[in-house]
Each structure stands twice: as structure tokens, then as C-alpha cells.
């Protein structure tokens, strides 16, 4: 069977190469037969002409015969498709305006979908670039997640990792790693920064990776505590910092803790052992580690790790869960956590599939990504409906041509196929343009996700899976755009229409109903997109103008790192900074608000036993005197810190916020009262003041218990805040110079304004808001064009009728209202469905909204009004044109 097909195809291909030879051969073969017959007749005795005529008669229809034979040698479906395509191209070229609008519309729809998917794919869909990622699992503790950004369930103590590694029988390998952090690296004498992970010695083996260059470190190589520890570079870091120089293997590299590492390195001179394969970025999606450093073989460092294990073949997740239960109990027993935290954090073994890696980036952006996908899909739908009504309108004006083809014997399917091919051509052109645009924009889109706090590294290049997605989108687009016009334009008794005069007249019911329905559909979908955009923008506005409890403007925030050469540095800096021109106040704090960083601790108050661990939890910040004044946080009771408060070691005084005061002391004045820290056996703390509530972790955070502690002398400061009258950015260079001039070994890790920090914390909301606003504008534009197009066309179709009306005495305003009322009816229908749909759809984003409910009446009224205004504007021109028709010309119009 196959061989036959193959042989036939080969013959056909050869015939394809030389069409003329095929035709010539057929002609010659048949005429030879004819001649032979003629000869035979002549031999039988009839005359020349008679023989020929007789021969011809017997031969039958030579042309038909040749056609039939010829057809066998062609790839029939391909040839018809090619013919349809050439014809469609001609048709499209004849109406360039329509063609360009249609292609642009589809390009925008397909391009937007491709672009969003190119971000979604590495973030949500793609698996880790390691060997057999489906066999990997995370191990961790159940418990209350401390931070929204981080998946603390998968963090374990080092002792737990050792238990899992040594005692399990279900894994072929267990590795541990820390999350990626910045390190100070010295390259060729130049200080620079690189991100690094501290990983167990079997990291690369368990993941099943081969080095691109050199080798990886193994358990035999001493670990970080050995004399010459090894380090592995990531491929992109090797390309960036070492310019792909293969001679780096064996070179020494100096790596030291930057101010913010949890895992102190013992040594600082590492030897470069090898380079990781390209495409490998670690096990955290959205982050990229430049360096992989080995953990020390013994000891308690690093204290917190993420544990990843590879299941042995044939072992299921459930089996592993059961088998590990007793080992988990041992880790609980050996845990060094204080009892109250143990109860909170170690509620049970967590074992989860790790094929998609760990990702705080994903946690942060997942909902946003899904909403984006939904919104651009809606925009594509509008685009398809738009092109569909355009094609439908053209189908009506080409009715005469279609009827003639039907009369010539064409079945319905070839006509339908013709229109589908037109839609396909438009779709392909749009897809090419759209994918190119998306490819060009992909890099900048991925970069736009990054903020200083959470830099995002996603490989958003357009590869095979994304192109496959685009192809699927293209097929859906073609079907959506082409089916309705194709089926409708060829419906009905086409032959009967030939008898009716005029190219636009049809005997079938008016196609304009379908056009109106499609239009109403566009309006409905636009309403949903507009409603979503409106709510999100309203929410964003609320977030940006929310009262934070402190004054976010005129505030310069500087993050310092490095050990000062003299302890007097900090006082000097504070003093000098206060006297800078334009500076009003300055203070230190361990942490700065709105970065998502927070430290918590548990307290207990006399007479207030905590019902649950959550109740005893407070966030705290260590601050210098003058902090409240610098931040603009009002002091409600008592006093602010003085330098003496920080002198006692450990500090004995604290300022609490209003929420905590109300929580523990109700209406009483808490000043003078005391509280204790639950752990550490420290002396009770005395409350010296009450500050107003202010936002700390993020803008959305509800007010929670908070305490301020005075800065202890020995602690290393982190953030330095300066209140400025006027623009804080203007003072930045002066502050920078000041720090430099005072002490060279202290460096500024970050210099920014509080307003900027606020904006960064709202980064995701702004991204979504921007995207939805862009989609809303797009939807509005498409709908406007759609309304204008369809109504114009309907006016042209009804020209005759309008002429008659005018001839019978209708005034201009009657005609105007005739057309406008048509538009109004469509608008009303569309809005009704759209608003109802939007009310349902916006419930999905309800929990993302801040300060506005998902059925906010003002937003919905605004959406309806905006659509009505746009619809009116789009209707106006066709209506005016209709009312201005010259009745005589209209009556003559066919």
C-alpha cells in the first residue's frame, strides 16, 4: 500500500516538474489513437474525411478525456488550494484598504498573544533544564508561610537535609542549595558583583548535568572549608564576565560576602573548576545564579537550605511520602527551632513535584500572567469578529460572482473553501507580522518584569513551543474569522439570486442581521475588557495614593554595606547629613518600608496570654533617634527615642504602634507598661511611646502589630534615610560624596527615593494595569472601526430604500435617526450582554483589587458611557452620509 503511494507520488512529482511535457504526451497519445482508428476506417474503405469524422465521433469528447487523465497526474487537493490562494490574492489586492486593516487587526491580536505566551512559557509551562525533571521533588516542612513572595514551605534546616540524604531508601540522590544571593567578586583587580548559590557537593550529579567546560566539584573535593575550594561558573556569566575565555579553568577568583548574605563564606579564594551547560540557570525559575559554590562538608553552615531529591525509578510520590515519615520525625526531634516556632513551622512533611522548579517570581506573577493571557485572548476574539464582519460584508458584495460560479457547477464546498483560503491568507500575513513584532518585543517585555528587589531572568526568546502556540492561535483565528462569512455567503438558493437585478441584491434574508450580531458581540467583549481595565486602574490609583502613614515624598533612602573603619562613622555621617543644604532630618534603620522585607518576633504581655502563635507575632525595625521625625510618622503618645536608649545592651526600651497598643492595652495608655520577648530570656521591655500605624511590608498590608527598637551601637546599620525639602534626587550626589569622603570601605549598595521604592513595590500592579489599559484601548479602537465599517456598509446596502424614503418626503433628521437608532439598538444589545458578562468575569480579579469592589457601579457606568460615546461617534459619519444622499442618485443605485 505504502510502496504504491510512494511510487505514484514520485511519478506525480516528476510530472509536476514538467507540466508541458505531460500535456504534450497526453495530446500525442490520444491523437495517435485517433489516427490509428482513422487508418482503420480508411482501410475498411470509407473516404478520408468520412473516416476522420467517424473516428472523431467514436472518440468522444477529447478535451474531457484529456482533463480526466491529466487530473490523475496532479496532486488534486494541492492544486485546488493553490488555485484558490492565487485567486484570493487577486481579490485581496483589489481592496488594499480592507486587506491592510484586516492584516493589522489580526497581527495585533496574534502578536499580543504570542508575546504574553513567550513570558508565560518559561515561567509556568517549561520544566527545569535538567535530566528527567519529572523525577525531582522538593522536601520541606508544612507551616505558615511568612512572606507572600517566598515559598517557605520548602525551606529546611541543614540537619534535616543530612537526615534525608543519609537515611532514605527512596531517592537516588538528595541535594541541597541556598537561594541565589549577591556576592562581592574581584575580577582582575576590579570589584564587581555576582549572584551565587551555595550548593551541596552532589548538586550537579543529582541533577544529571554535564559540564560545558572543565568539571564540577564532587564530594571528594573538600567543600567550602577546604584549603582551595572550587567554584563553578554559569554559562552566561562565563560569557559575560570572562568573555568565553576557556583559560579560566584553574584560575583563582576572589568571592566574598556582600552585606546581605545569609551564608558566611569561610574562604574567599576559590578556584574555577568548570562552566555549567548553557541554558542552565539553577533551580529557581526567574532567577539566574552566576556562581555555584560548594557547601562546607561539616559544620552548621548554611543553616537554611532547600532540599531537592530525585526519586528512584518506579517509586511514586506517595510511596516516598510514607517512607519518609519516620525520617521527618527525626528532623523534628533534632530541630533547633524554639518550641513555638517549631509548632508553627513544622506541621508535617511536605513533598512536592519539582519539575517546574522553585519560583517566587512565579508566585508573584502567576495571577497577573493568567489575567494577561485572558485579556489578550479577548482582544484576539474581538479582532477575529472584526475581520469576520469585514469578510461577511465583502461576501455580500461578491454575491454575483459567487452565484455565477455556483451556476457553472461549483458545489458549495469550493465556494466555502475559497473564502476560508482568503481568511487563511490574511491570518498568515497577520501571524507573520505579529510574531515578528512579538519576537522583537520579547526581550524588553521580560526585562520590564524586573525590579531592583526582584530581578527577573526569563528566557523569553521565541522558540519552537512558542511558535507552535502561535500556529495554534493562527488556526483558531482563521476558523473564527472565516467560517461565518464562508457559510453565510454561500447559503441559500444562489441561482435564484441571479434573476434579481443588481449586484448587491439578494433574495435571501438580509445578511445585515448577522453583521449586527457580530458587532454587538464586539461591543460585549470590549465591555468586559474595559471593565477589567477600569477596575484595575482604579485599584492602582488607590494603591498609589493610599495613606501610608508616613510621608513618602521628599525622602531619600540609602542602603549601606561594608564595614566602616571606625565606629564613629555612623554618628559623623548622621551629623554631616543633617547639615547638607536642603536636608531636614536624617536617621538610620535596619530595614526600609515597602520592600517586602520584614523581620518578626514573638512577644508576650502580662495578662494577655496569646491564643495562637500568630497573635504573639510582631514585626519590628531597629531605628535611630529621629527616625519617626524623618519618616514623618506622627508620635501619638509618649516620647521618641533618645541616644541614651540605644546605649543599654540589650535595649530595654521600645515604641509600639497604635494597632499593638489597642491590641494589648485597649484604651489605656501603654506608656510605661512592659512586654517580654518570648525567646531568649531577655529582660522585659518598657514602652516609651506610641507611634501611628504605617505601612511596612507593602501598601496592601493591613495594619499589624509593630515595634520600634532603638539602634544598638554594635549592630551594623543598613538603611540611612534623609528627609529633604525639595526634590530628594537633587541631594543624591551630595549624599554619595559625603559617604565616600567619610569612609572608603563603606559603599552605597542602593540609593533611591521612597517614592521610587513605592512604585517598585507596586510594580506588578502597574504592569497589569498598563497591559489592561493598552488592551482596552485596542479593543475600543477595533470596535470603533468595526461599527464604522458595518454601518457604512449597511447604509450602502440600503441606499435604494433611503432614496425612496427621501423621495416620499422624509426629512434629513428622519434618515439620521433611522441609521442612528440602528446603531443604538446594536449598542444596547452589546452593552446588555457585555456588562452582564463583565460582572461575572471581574469576580476573578476581585481579590487583586484595592479599595474598589469588583462590581463598582461607577466603573461600570463609566464603561457603558465610554462605549456609547465611541459608538455614537462611529455611527455619526455613516448616518450623516445617509441623510445627505441625493434622492435621484440613490434611486438609480442598484
Amino acid at each position, binding site marked *: 500500500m505504502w*510502496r504504491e503511494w510512494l511510487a505514484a507520488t514520485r511519478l*506525480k512529482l516528476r510530472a509536476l516538474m514538467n507540466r508541458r511535457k505531460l500535456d504534450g*504526451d497526453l495530446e500525442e497519445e490520444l491523437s*495517435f*489513437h485517433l489516427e490509428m482508428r482513422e*487508418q482503420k476506417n480508411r482501410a475498411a474503405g470509407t473516404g478520408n474525411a468520412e473516416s476522420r469524422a467517424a473516428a472523431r465521433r467514436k472518440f468522444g469528447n477529447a478535451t474531457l478525456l484529456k482533463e480526466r*487523465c491529466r487530473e490523475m*497526474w496532479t496532486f488534486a487537493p494541492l492544486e485546488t488550494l493553490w488555485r484558490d490562494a492565487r485567486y484570493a490574492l487577486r481579490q485581496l489586492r483589489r481592496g488594499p484598504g480592507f486587506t491592510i486593516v484586516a492584516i493589522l487587526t489580526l497581527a495585533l491580536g496574534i502578536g499580543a498573544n504570542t508575546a504574553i505566551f513567550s513570558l508565560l512559557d518559561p515561567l509556568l509551562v517549561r520544566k527545569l533544564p535538567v535530566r528527567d525533571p519529572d523525577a525531582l521533588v522538593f522536601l520541606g516542612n508544612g507551616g505558615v508561610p511568612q512572606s507572600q513572595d517566598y515559598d517557605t514551605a520548602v525551606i529546611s534546616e541543614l540537619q534535616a537535609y543530612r537526615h534525608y540524604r543519609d537515611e532514605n531508601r527512596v531517592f537516588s540522590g538528595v541535594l541541597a542549595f541556598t537561594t541565589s544571593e549577591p556576592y562581592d567578586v574581584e575580577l582582575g583587580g576590579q570589584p564587581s558583583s555576582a549572584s551565587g548559590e551555595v550548593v551541596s557537593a552532589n548538586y550537579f550529579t543529582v541533577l544529571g548535568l554535564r559540564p560545558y567546560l572543565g568539571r564540577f566539584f564532587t564530594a571528594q573535593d573538600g567543600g567550602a572549608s577546604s584549603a582551595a575550594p572550587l567554584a563553578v561558573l554559569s554559562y552566561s556569566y562565563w560569557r559575560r564576565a570572562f568573555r568565553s575565555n576557556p583559560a579560566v579553568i584553574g584560575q583563582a577568583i576572589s568571592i566574598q560576602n556582600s552585606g546581605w548574605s545569609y551564608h558566611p563564606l569561610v574562604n574567599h579564594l576559590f578556584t574555577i573548576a568548570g562552566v555549567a551547560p548553557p541554558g542552565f540557570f539553577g533551580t529557581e525559575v526567574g532567577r539566574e545564579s552566576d556562581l555555584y559554590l560548594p557547601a562546607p562538608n561539616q559544620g552548621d553552615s548554611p543553616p537554611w537550605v532547600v532540599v531537592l531529591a530525585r526519586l528512584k525509578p518506579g517509586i511514586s510520590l506517595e510511596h516516598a511520602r510514607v517512607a519518609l515519615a519516620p525520617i521527618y520525625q527525626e528532623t523534628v526531634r533534632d530541630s533547633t527551632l524554639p518550641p513555638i516556632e517549631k509548632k508553627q513551622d513544622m506541621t508535617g512533611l511536605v513533598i512536592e513535584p519539582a519539575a517546574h522548579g522553585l519560583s517566587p517570581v512565579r508566585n508573584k506573577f502567576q495571577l497577573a500572567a493568567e489575567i494577561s493571557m485572558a485579556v489578550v485572548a479577548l482582544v484576539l476574539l474581538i479582532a477575529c469578529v472584526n475581520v469576520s464582519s469585514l469578510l461577511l460584508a465583502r461576501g455580500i458584495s461578491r454575491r454575483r460572482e459567487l452565484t455565477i460560479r455556483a451556476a457553472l457547477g461549483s458545489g458549495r464546498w469550493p465556494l466555502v473553501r475559497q473564502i476560508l483560503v482568503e481568511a487563511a491568507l490574511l491570518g498568515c500575513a497577520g501571524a507573520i507580522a505579529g510574531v515578528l513584532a512579538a519576537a522583537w518585543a520579547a526581550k524588553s517585555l521580560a526585562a520590564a518584569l524586573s525590579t531592583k528587589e526582584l530581578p527577573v531572568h526569563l528566557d523569553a526568546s521565541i522558540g519552537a513551543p512558542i511558535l507552535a502556540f502561535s500556529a495554534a492561535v493562527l488556526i483558531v483565528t482563521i476558523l473564527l474569522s472565516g467560517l461565518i462569512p464562508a457559510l453565510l455567503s454561500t447559503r441559500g438558493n444562489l441561482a435564484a439570486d441571479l434573476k434579481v437585478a443588481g449586484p448587491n441584491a439578494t433574495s435571501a434574508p438580509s445578511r445585515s442581521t448577522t453583521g449586527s450580531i457580530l458587532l454587538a458581540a464586539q461591543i460585549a467583549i470590549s465591555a468586559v475588557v474595559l471593565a477589567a481595565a477600569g477596575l484595575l486602574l482604579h485599584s492602582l490609583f488607590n494603591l498609589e495614593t493610599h495613606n501610608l502613614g508616613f510621608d513618602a515624598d521628599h525622602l531619600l533612602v540609602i542602603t549601606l554595606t561594608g564595614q566602616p573603619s571606625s565606629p564613629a562613622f555612623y554618628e559623623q555621617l548622621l551629623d554631616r547629613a543633617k547639615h547638607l543644604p536642603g536636608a531636614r532630618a536624617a536617621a538610620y534603620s535596619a530595614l526600609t518600608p515597602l520592600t517586602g522585607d520584614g523581620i518578626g518576633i514573638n512577644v508576650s504581655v502580662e495578662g494577655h496570654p496569646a491564643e495562637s502563635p500568630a497573635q504573639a507575632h510582631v514585626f519590628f525595625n531597629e531605628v535611630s533617634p529621629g527616625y519617626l521625625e524623618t519618616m514623618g510618622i506622627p508620635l501619638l503618645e509618649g516620647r521618641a527615642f533618645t541616644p541614651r536608649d540605644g546605649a543599654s545592651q540589650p535595649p530595654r526600651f521600645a515604641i509600639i504602634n497604635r494597632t499593638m497598643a489597642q491590641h494589648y492595652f485597649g484604651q489605656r495608655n501603654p506608656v510605661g507598661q512592659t512586654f517580654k520577648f518570648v525567646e531568649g530570656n531577655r529582660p522585659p521591655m518598657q514602652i516609651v511611646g506610641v507611634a501611628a500605624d504605617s505601612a511596612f511590608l507593602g501598601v496592601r498590608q493591613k495594619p499589624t502589630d509593630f515595634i520600634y527598637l532603638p539602634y544598638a551601637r554594635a549592630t551594623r546599620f543598613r538603611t540611612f534615610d534623609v528627609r529633604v525639602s525639595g526634590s530628594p534626587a537633587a541631594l543624591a550626589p551630595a549624599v554619595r560624596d559625603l559617604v565616600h569622603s567619610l569612609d572608603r570601605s563603606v559603599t552605597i549598595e542602593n540609593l533611591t527615593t521612597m517614592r521610587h521604592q513605592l512604585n517598585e513595590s507596586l510594580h506588578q500592579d502597574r504592569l497589569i494595569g498598563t497591559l489592561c489599559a493598552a488592551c482596552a484601548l485596542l479593543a475600543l479602537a477595533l470596535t470603533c472601526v468595526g461599527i464604522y465599517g458595518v454601518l457604512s456598509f449597511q447604509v450602502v446596502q440600503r441606499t435604494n430604500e433611503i432614496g425612496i424614503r427621501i423621495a416620499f418626503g422624509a426629512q434629513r433628521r428622519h434618515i439620521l435617526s433611522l441609521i442612528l437608532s440602528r446603531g443604538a439598538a446594536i449598542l444596547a444589545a452589546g452593552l446588555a450582554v457585555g456588562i452582564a458578562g463583565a460582572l461575572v468575569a471581574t469576580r476573578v480579579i476581585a481579590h487583586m483589587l484595592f479599595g474598589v469592589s469588583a462590581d463598582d457601579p461607577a466603573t461600570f457606568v463609566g464603561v457603558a458611557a465610554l462605549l456609547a460615546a465611541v459608538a455614537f461617534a462611529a455611527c455619526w459619519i455613516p448616518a450623516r452620509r445617509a441623510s445627505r444622499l441625493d434622492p435621484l442618485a440613490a434611486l438609480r443605485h442598484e
Partner: protein
Amino acid sequence: MGKPENDPRGDLLRDTLDMLILKTVSRGAMHGYAIAESIHQATDDVLRVEEGALYPALHRLELRGWLASEWGASENNRRAKYYRLTATGRKQLATETAHWSRMAAAIARIIEPA
């Protein structure tokens, strides 16, 4: 306009024609006219193959690889397309002949009075 290919009765006729052509050509390469004449004579004028059926059949058989064609000189020195049986064609002929004999015997058993 119903095409003959869609007619189930035409299927049977077409397959039979294929078999006849293959058998005719098995004796030696022939051009189309000669094949038609051969069948005409061999069946004593009972079966007459029209061009409208012959040439589509010849081309179909060539595409299926059972016949191979080449141009040559005819008996009166004209250029003509000669068809010959291929190895697969020979096998197909054997299959079809056997099938046909079985069919004919079966039908004969019914037609013959018991």
C-alpha cells in the same frame, strides 16, 4: 453529473478492465490502441473498450506501478506510448485472476440449476 467512479457497478467494471489490460499487456508491450484492439478481437467483438475508459485505466495502472510506459516507434513509424507489465503488475495480475476465477465459480454454482 455523476462521475462513473462513484457508481458501484462501475467499480466492478473498472477492476475487471484493469485485469483485462494487465493480461493483454502480459504477453508483450503494447500501445493503447493495440490493447483496445486486442481485447476486441480476443473476445470476438463481445467486449469493446471505449477510449473514455481505456486511457484513464492505463494512466491509473501506471500510477499504481503495475504498468511502466515508454515512448517508441509504432508499426507505421509513428511515436506511440508503449505499456508493459512490471514485476508488481505481474503479481497483481495473478492475484486478480485467482480472485476472478473464484468469483466466477461461485456465481456459476448459484446460476446453475441445483
